[in-house]
C-alpha cells in the first residue's frame, strides 16, 4: 500500500488540497471555494474528492492542515465567553494596554475592545516581585470567589495572568489547581505556562486570546476528526501548521491554539525553504501575492527568521510590531511583512492628483471590472488585462471568461481620463504604484534588516506573484527569480513537506559573562529537555529530533533582544565569546552600530526543536531539450514598460518540459497564475517544473 500525505490550506477565498504520494513522488491537487461558515466543509470536500478517485485514500497516514480559523474567531469576535484572573489592583491592564491611540490622526479609531469584559476581569490578593520573591501570599479565598462568579456567569474559558509570574509561577499554578477543581469543564490558559516572559500587557493579551480561541478551536478539531473518522476507515494523524513554520499534532495545538494564528502564510514560506533546498538555494525572499494582500519573508542560510510576537487587529501598517495598536499575542512566528495590496486592489486618483492603489479591494464579489460581475472600479488585475499580461483565453484555465473591454473602460474612465494618459500608460501606472508597494515590503524584510536583496533569490508565488516578480526583480536588482510549479497552491505544498516543531523559552536576566555560564547551561538543558519531551510525545525517536538553541541578548539597559544561535555546549568562556561576537555583528547589521565594550545580558534562553518527517522525493519531469515549442500556444501583444507593445509568445505551463528555455519577452500561462518573462530575462524549466528566471543582473555585484 502506498503512503499518502494530504496538505489542506484553507484560505480566504479558496481551500487548496495537495495529495502527495510518498512512493511515486506524484502530486494531485484540488481547489475548492472556502466555506467560512463551517471551514471543515471545504476541507472535507477535498477528502471526499480524493477518496472518490480510483486510487482512493487508503494509505493516508498524515493530514497537515493550514487554517485561519483562529484568526477569524478573534477578528469576527465569535470566540468563547472568557474570564480573567489577575493580581489585585490590575484588572484593567488588559484594557489599558500601552494607553495609546492606535492612530494619532484618527481620533475615532479606538484600541480593540478587550476579549474579557471588565465585569469578568477579577482580582485576587497576591503579589510577587520582579525577582520572584513572594511579597503577599495568594489569597485562595479570592480565587474561589472568582470561580463562583465564573460559574454563575457560565464562562467557557479562563485566562490567568498574575504580575511577575514569569519570575515565579507558584501562585498561578495554585490558581490553576483551584480552578481545575472548581470549574472542571472550563478551558484554562495560564500565563506562566504559555508565555513566561516579562511585560504584563503582552502576557495578559496572549492568555486572553488563547482562552478566547481555545474552546472553539477544540470544537473545530473535534468536528474535523469526527468527519475524518466517518469518511475514512483509518483516519490519518491530524497535524496543524504553526505560525513558526512547523507542524504540531492537533492534540498539542489544542493546548496552545495561538501557535496557529499565521498558519497559512507560514506554510508558503516553508515551501520556499523546501524548494530552495532542492535547488541548492539558501538565501531566498519568499514573496506571496494574492487577491487582497501580499506577504514577504526573508530566508537566510535556508532558515526563515522568527519573531516572538504577533498582533491581531492591527489598524496601522508600517509599525513593525513596535508600537502596539492591536492585540499582541506572544507566539513564535515567521517574520512576515504584509501589505494590503493584491490583484483585486482598487486604483484611484486622489484629490491631489496622485495615483493610489489599495487598500480597498474589489474582493471576490464583484471582483475586478474585467470579471463582468458588476465591478466598475479599476483593479490591478484589470491593469494586467489591459497590458495583455493576463490573457482572456487562459484565465483560470478558461473556466472563467474575462472581458478586456470592461477593464479598458474602467481604467480609461477612472485613471486615464483624470491623469491625461492613455489606457496603457494608466495601466502601467497602476502596476508601477502597486509594484512600489511590493518593493517596499520586500525592502523591509531585506534592506531594513541589513540584507542586500541582490544576494537573494526571489521566490514568487500566490496567484499574482509570478505576474509581478519580473518587475520587482528589476527594481531590486535581483539576479534570479524562481516560480514554483503550482504557485497558486504553494502554501498547501508547504504543508505536505513540513516537519513537526516545538519551542521552549524562559526569561533569565543574566550578565553575558563567564560567571553566568553554569546558569545558562542549566537553562539550555531544561529547555532542551522540554522540547525533547514534547517531540517524544509526538512519537519521534531521539535520532529524528533536532534541537536548535538560542540566547536572546541585548546591551544592558536596552529592551529589545536579538536572537543569537548557540553552537556547542558553552563549556568555555571562548565559546561564549563566540556568541557575543555574533551578537555585536548582528547589532551592527540590524541597527547600524555596535559597541563591543558595552555590557551585554542574556534575557531569554530558548530552544527550537524539529521532529523530522521523512522527505519523499518528488517526481522528475522528463527532459525536453531547450526548445519549448511543444508548449507554444500563440502570440499576443503584451505591454512592457521598457519597450512598449511587443508581440510575444505564450506558453502553456503544464506542457513545458525540463530544460526548456524561454527567452523574454514571453508569457507562461497556467490554471490560476501567469508568469511574466520580461525582455532580457530568460527562463529555464527545472526538474520539478519550476521556472528559474535569470534577469541578466548577475554581473551587477
Amino acid at each position, binding site marked *: 500500500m502506498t503512503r499518502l500525505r494530504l496538505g489542506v490550506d484553507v484560505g480566504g477565498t479558496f481551500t487548496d488540497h495537495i495529495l502527495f504520494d510518498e512512493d511515486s513522488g506524484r502530486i494531485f491537487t484540488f481547489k475548492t471555494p472556502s466555506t467560512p461558515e463551517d471551514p471543515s466543509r471545504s476541507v472535507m470536500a477535498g477528502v471526499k474528492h480524493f477518496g472518490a478517485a480510483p486510487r482512493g485514500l487508503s494509505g493516508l497516514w498524515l493530514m497537515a492542515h493550514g487554517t485561519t480559523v483562529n484568526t477569524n474567531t478573534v477578528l469576527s469576535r465569535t470566540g468563547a465567553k472568557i474570564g480573567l484572573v489577575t493580581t489585585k489592583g490590575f484588572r484593567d491592564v488588559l484594557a489599558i494596554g500601552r494607553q495609546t491611540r492606535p492612530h494619532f490622526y484618527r481620533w475615532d479609531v479606538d484600541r480593540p475592545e478587550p476579549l474579557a469584559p471588565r465585569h469578568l476581569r477579577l482580582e485576587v490578593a497576591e503579589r510577587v516581585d520582579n525577582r520572584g520573591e513572594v511579597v503577599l501570599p495568594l489569597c485562595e479565598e479570592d480565587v474561589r470567589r472568582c470561580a463562583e462568579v465564573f460559574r454563575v456567569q457560565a464562562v467557557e474559558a479562563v485566562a490567568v495572568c498574575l504580575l511577575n509570574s514569569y519570575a515565579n509561577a507558584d501562585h498561578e499554578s495554585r490558581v490553576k489547581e483551584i480552578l481545575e477543581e472548581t470549574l472542571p469543564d472550563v478551558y484554562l490558559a495560564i500565563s506562566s505556562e504559555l508565555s513566561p516572559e516579562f511585560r504584563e500587557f503582552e502576557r495578559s493579551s496572549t492568555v486572553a486570546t488563547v482562552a478566547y480561541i481555545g474552546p472553539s478551536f477544540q470544537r473545530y478539531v473535534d468536528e474535523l476528526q469526527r468527519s475524518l473518522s466517518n469518511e475514512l476507515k483509518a483516519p490519518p494523524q491530524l497535524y496543524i501548521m504553526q505560525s513558526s513554520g512547523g507542524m504540531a499534532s492537533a492534540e498539542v495545538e489544542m493546548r496552545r491554539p495561538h501557535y496557529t494564528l499565521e498558519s497559512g502564510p507560514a506554510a508558503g514560506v516553508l515551501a520556499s525553504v523546501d524548494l530552495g533546498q532542492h535547488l541548492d538555494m539558501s538565501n531566498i525572499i519568499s514573496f506571496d501575492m494574492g487577491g487582497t494582500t501580499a506577504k514577504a519573508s526573508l530566508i537566510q542560510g535556508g532558515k526563515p527568521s522568527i519573531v516572538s510576537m504577533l498582533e491581531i487587529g492591527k489598524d496601522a501598517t508600517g509599525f513593525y510590531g513596535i508600537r502596539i495598536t492591536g492585540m499582541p499575542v506572544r507566539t513564535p512566528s515567521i517574520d512576515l511583512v504584509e501589505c494590503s495590496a493584491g490583484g483585486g486592489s482598487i486604483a484611484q486618483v486622489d484629490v491631489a492628483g496622485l495615483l*493610489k492603489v489599495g487598500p480597498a479591494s474589489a474582493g471576490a464579489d464583484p471582483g475586478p471590472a474585467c470579471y463582468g460581475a458588476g465591478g466598475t472600479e479599476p483593479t490591478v488585475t484589470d491593469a494586467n488585462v489591459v497590458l495583455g499580461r493576463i490573457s482572456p483565453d487562459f484565465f483560470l484555465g478558461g473556466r472563467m471568461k474575462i472581458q478586456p473591454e470592461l477593464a479598458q473602460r474602467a481604467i480609461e474612465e477612472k485613471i486615464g481620463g483624470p491623469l491625461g494618459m492613455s489606457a496603457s500608460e494608466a495601466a502601467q501606472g497602476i502596476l508601477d504604484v502597486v509594484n512600489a508597494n511590493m518593493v517596499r515590503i520586500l525592502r523591509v524584510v531585506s534592506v531594513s534588516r541589513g540584507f542586500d536583496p541582490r544576494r537573494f533569490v526571489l521566490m514568487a508565488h500566490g496567484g499574482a506573484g509570478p505576474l509581478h516578480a519580473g518587475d520587482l526583480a528589476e527594481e531590486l536588482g535581483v539576479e534570479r527569480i524562481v516560480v514554483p510549479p503550482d504557485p497558486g497552491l504553494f502554501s498547501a505544498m508547504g504543508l505536505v513537506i513540513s516537519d513537526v516543531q516545538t519551542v521552549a523559552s524562559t526569561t533569565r536576566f543574566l550578565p553575558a559573562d563567564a560567571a553566568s555560564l553554569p546558569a545558562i547551561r542549566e537553562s539550555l538543558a531544561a529547555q532542551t529537555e522540554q522540547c525533547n519531551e514534547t517531540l517524544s510525545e509526538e512519537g519521534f525517536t531521539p535520532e529524528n529530533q533536532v534541537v536548535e538553541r538560542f540566547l536572546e541578548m541585548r546591551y544592558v539597559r536596552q529592551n529589545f533582544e536579538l536572537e543569537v544561535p548557540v553552537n556547542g555546549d558553552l563549556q568555555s568562556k571562548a565559546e561564549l565569546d563566540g556568541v557575543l561576537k555574533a551578537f555585536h555583528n548582528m547589532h551592527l547589521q540590524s541597527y547600524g552600530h555596535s559597541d563591543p565594550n558595552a555590557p551585554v545580558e542574556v534575557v531569554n534562553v530558548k530552544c527550537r526543536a524539529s521532529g523530522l518527517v521523512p522527505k519523499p522525493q518528488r517526481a522528475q519531469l522528463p527532459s525536453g531539450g531547450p526548445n519549448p515549442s511543444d508548449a507554444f500556444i500563440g502570440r499576443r501583444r503584451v505591454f512592457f514598460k521598457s519597450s512598449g507593445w511587443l508581440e510575444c509568445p505564450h506558453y502553456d505551463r503544464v506542457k513545458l518540459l525540463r530544460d526548456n528555455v524561454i527567452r523574454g519577452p514571453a508569457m507562461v500561462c497556467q490554471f490560476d497564475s501567469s508568469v511574466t518573462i520580461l525582455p532580457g530575462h530568460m527562463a529555464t524549466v527545472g526538474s520539478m517544473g519550476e521556472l528559474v528566471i535569470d534577469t541578466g543582473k548577475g554581473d551587477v555585484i
Partner: protein
Amino acid sequence: MSQSRLNPITVEIIGNSLASIADEILVGLIKSAYSTNIKERQDCSSVIMDAQGRVVCISDMSLPMHLSSFMFTGEALLRRHPNETLHEGDVFIVNDPYSGGPSHLADVTFVTPVFHQGELVAFVANTGHWPDVGGKAPGQAALGDATEIYQEGLRIPTVRLQKAGEVQQDILDIVLLNVRDPHNREGDIRAHMGSLMLGARRMKELAAQYDVYILTDALDQLLDVAEVKARHGILSLAEGDYEALDHLDDDMDSDEPIPIRVKVSVRHKPKPSIKVDYAGTGGPAKFGINMPYHGTVTVVFWVLRSILDPEVQPNAGFERAIEVVAPDGCLVNCKDPSPLGARYEVASQIPDSLFLALSGAVKKGIEAGGHGTHGMGFSAQPPNSFIYYETVGGGGGARPDKDGVNGVHITSNLPIEAMEQEFPMMADRLEYIPDSGGPGRFRGGVGIRKDWRMMVDSYVGVHSNRHRIPGPGLLEGRDGTLTRIVRNPDSDIAETLHREATFVPVGPDDVVTIFAGGGGGYGSPLERDPALVAQDVTDGLVSIEAARRDYGVVVDPESLKVDSEATADLRQEMRSNA
C-alpha cells in the same frame, strides 16, 4: 501650487520611499536605545527634510508633538551652517527651543545632511525625549518651579556632534558631563546617530536610483500635494469665524486660571485657508508650562490634519494653507528665557479648545475635551540613583457617535514589570476610576488610577494639568473629573500634591497615587441609551448612584437591569427641573 513637473506616479512612489526610510530610522532608534522613555515608551520621532531644511515627510510612528522638533530646525541649521560648510557624515545635535530646535530641552534632536555626488539632497533627522538633560533637578518632571529655561537643563544650539564621520569628542564630553546618568545617554546617542546613518544610506540609494533633480522635484511636489489636500479638506468645513475659551489651571504665584483664547477663521476664498489666532491668550506663565510658537503650530497642525485629512503630511506645504498667529510673549508663543519644560500641558489643551471652537464647523461633529496630560517623575540620589519619567492616561473626550476613549495618552505607559526590573519601585494599582467620565449621551472616557510604592528614599516631581479646570463637555455633555495626585492616599497622612510639585521627598513604603481625570461628555446624559448606562454599571465604570443622579437611569442593584418605568419617570422629572 507650482506647475506639475513630474509624473504623479513617480511622486507617489518617492513619497512611499520617504515614508519607509523615516520608519526605518525610528525602528533603529527604538530598538537600540537605552532610555525606557525611548525603548519602551517610544517618545521619539523621525523625519525626512529637503535640501532647504523643510520637513517633507514625518514617519507614521512619530508623535504629533514632535513635528516641533523639526519644523524650523532644518532652516535654522542652514542659517547657522550654510550649505557649503556641510559634509557627508556630519551629525548635528540641538535641543534649544529658542535657537531653532525642538519645543523643550528634553527632546534632543539629531540631524544629518545627505549628499549624492557631492550635492546636498536632503536631511534625515530624529528626536527623542531624554529622561534627563541636566538642570536643577533630575528628569524633566521635577522642574515645576523653574522660572527660566537655564534652570531646565543644558541648552545645546545646533552644533556638530560628528564631523565628516568623526565624533566630536569635545562636544560629546560637554553633553555627557551635564546630564545625569551619562552612560545611558551615551547609549541613546549611539542609537540616535546609528539610525540616522542607516537612514542617510537609504536616502543616498534613493538619490542614486533617480537623478538628483528628479528627487528634488519630487520632494517639492510632495509639499504641493500636502497643500492641495489641506485646502481640499478645508472645503469640507463651513466658512465662518469660530471662537473658544479654555483655561489652564493656575500659575506659580496665582490661583487665577490662565486663559487660552482662540479664534479660528475658515475661508473658502480666494483659496481655502484657515487662520488660527490666539489673541487674548494669557501668560507667559511663571511655571514651565509655556509653549514656543513652533510648538503651538505643531499642535494646531496635528488637530487640523486629523480633521482635514488624516493621511496628509503636515509638512511645509500643509503650512501654506494654515496661518497661526499668537501675540509675542504669551502662553502659546513664549520667548527666551521663559521656562517651557512642561509645555505639553498647553499641547494637551490646544486640541480641546480647537475642538470646542470647530464643533460648529465640522459637519460630522467633533470630540469633547480631554483630561490634559500628567507627567510623573521619580528619582533618587546616589547610591540608589535612578531617573524615571512616565505619562499617565486619562479619559478622552466623548465623540458624536461613541464614548470617549478610556485611559488614553498620546505617549505609551511603561510596563509595570519593566519598571520593577529597572527602578526601585513597585506598582500597587493600575485601574480605571469609576464615575470619572463626563456624563453625556456619549460618556467621556474614564481616567486612570495608578499607585507607585517607593522602596528607597526618592523624590517625586510632577507636571500635570486639569487639576482645577476639567475637560469640557460638548452640547450639554458634562465635564470630566479633575486630576489629583496624592501622597499616601487612603491613610491618615494623605497629602494632595501640587500639580507642579518639585522634589517632594518620599521614602520606603510611601505611596504616590495619581487619579487622572476623565474626558468631557457629548450630548445630554438624559439621552443616553439606558442599556449603555446599565452596561457601564455592570462593568463598574459608572456607579448605581451616578446612573440615577447623572443619567436619570434607575438600575436594579441585584439584577443590574434597567427599571424602564422608573427611568422614564425620573428622566421626565429631571428634564422639567432643568
